[in-house]
């Protein structure tokens, strides 16, 4: 039973996105679409025919499956409500980051593959952001990994529940910036529009339609929820089913739902109160977050033995 907790992420990730959209709408005084709208969108896309450009190669057709498979594999590694999953021995935080990198690499290739201006633009921007975000994310995760003595996520989630210190606060703030950049949210990218010249993620998948688009979108939702789960696993891991002294699985599911709602509220709040910055100002913001992550690692090594 504990081995099937990844299904929670896969099935509920569109819901999380719907909740964020709804919260954002209500913060901005709009009614907004219902929280189930992402499911309807996915169903509609799955039923539709695809239009595939004749100039594309196999990369374009393989990418949706690779992206979806990589994000599902990432969802398998992350402990959701229980630390007893037997998938955990197969992966750690570094594997997780590289699974995302694999998905991103193929997405960028597919963006270039169709040969449109927007696709190439999106790909080059995505890569620029990735260069800045990946090391920052790693440093933030390593802070937690060092204090847990392992890069295994289950081990981190088990140890961290009794172990919160100033360096983790710094790492958490850097990690939140990383989540915003990775999920293409407002200070970095605008998830609501296809019509701006500033788009990053939407630019890359602009050529996709029908089933492929559904897979890409669903993969994106899953990635978002995996990152949220990772954040709460590492920094607020209380209330999980554990080998000794945990809570029951129903209670763990409830606590997990609360944590996800908390993350959704945070994201909606950030998106509603911030304006998107110019692309060339991004290195400054992401650079600050990188220094935060660096300081967190430093503080942990030097001050907390």
């Amino acid at each position, binding site marked *: 039973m504990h081995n099937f907790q990844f299904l929670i992420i896969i099935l509920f990730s569109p819901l999380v996105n719907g909740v964020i959209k709804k919260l954002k709408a209500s913060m901005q005084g709009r009614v907004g679409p219902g929280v189930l709208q992402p499911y309807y969108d996915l169903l509609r896309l799955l039923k539709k025919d695809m239009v595939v450009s004749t100039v594309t190669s196999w990369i374009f057709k393989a990418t949706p499956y690779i992206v979806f498979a990589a994000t599902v594999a990432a969802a398998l590694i992350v402990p959701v409500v229980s630390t007893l999953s037997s998938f955990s021995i197969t992966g750690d935080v570094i594997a997780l980051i590289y699974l995302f990198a694999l998905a991103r690499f193929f997405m960028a290739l597919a963006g270039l593959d169709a040969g449109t201006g927007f696709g190439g633009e999106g790909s080059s921007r995505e890569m620029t952001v990735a260069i800045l975000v990946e090391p920052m994310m790693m440093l933030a995760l390593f802070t937690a990994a060092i204090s847990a003595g392992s890069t295994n996520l289950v081990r981190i989630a088990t140890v961290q529940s009794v172990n919160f*210190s*100033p*360096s983790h*606060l*710094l790492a958490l703030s850097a990690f939140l910036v990383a989540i915003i950049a990775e999920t293409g949210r407002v200070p970095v990218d605008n998830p609501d529009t296809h019509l701006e010249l500033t788009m990053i993620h939407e630019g890359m998948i602009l050529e996709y339609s029908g089933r492929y688009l559904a897979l890409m979108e669903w993969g994106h939702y899953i990635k978002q929820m995996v990152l949220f789960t990772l954040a709460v696993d590492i920094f607020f891991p209380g209330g999980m089913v554990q080998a000794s002294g945990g809570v029951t699985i129903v209670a763990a599911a409830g606590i997990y739902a609360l944590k996800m709602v908390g993350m959704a509220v945070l994201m909606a709040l950030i998106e509603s109160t911030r304006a998107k910055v110019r692309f060339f100002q991004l*290195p*400054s*913001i992401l*650079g*600050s977050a*990188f*220094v*935060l992550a*660096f*300081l967190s690692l*430093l*503080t942990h090594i*030097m*001050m907390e033995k």
Partner: protein
Amino acid sequence: MKNWIEAFSVIDYISIGILLTAVTLNAFKSIESYVKAYTINSWLLAGLIAVVAVLVGETHLYIAALLTLATKGILIPLFLRRIVRRMRVTHEIQPYIGNSLSLAISGILVAVVYASLKDGIFVTGFSRNALQISIAVILISLFIMITRKKALTLVIGLLFMENGLFLAGFSLTFGMPTMIELGMLFDMLMGVIILGIFAVQIKRAFASADLDQLTVLKG
């Protein structure tokens, strides 16, 4: 209350906050955010003194916390804001080196301080972490003063440095006698007023508070 402070390492959290406000100076572009950062820094400093006062239980520390809050947390920021309004400064701060690079250099400065104070001079006081952080704040504010052009940013760099020095002294000695602290705070207040008036005069004489243009003599 005492157990609570120790269990949640409140002192460490506040010290990290003080360090963060100094580091974020490197990322800010407008003089208003500099003043804001200084205000937060001073409030955190006052909070730290209050926390230590609760731990040690000495009355003069409570007084020091209140005085810090009143002068550094309220009076000086108010005065700085007034000067910013009066000078009608162009809000962009043009540093000699870019934001990302100066952030990176601040990170390295912190690393150097942490590494060199790992063991050694810490003899008495309440927290080695606070001492390390105070030295880091002093170095970062020195760096800010070197790399920014506007007269007011230099004043704020100096104020940050004073906060760092205060924290350093405080973390080693549990606070100086109230008379000395009173004198220091009064000196600071006067210093800021003089420097503020001075900056306004520079602006009036040179039509700019940009220190690059102060190389020419003016009769």
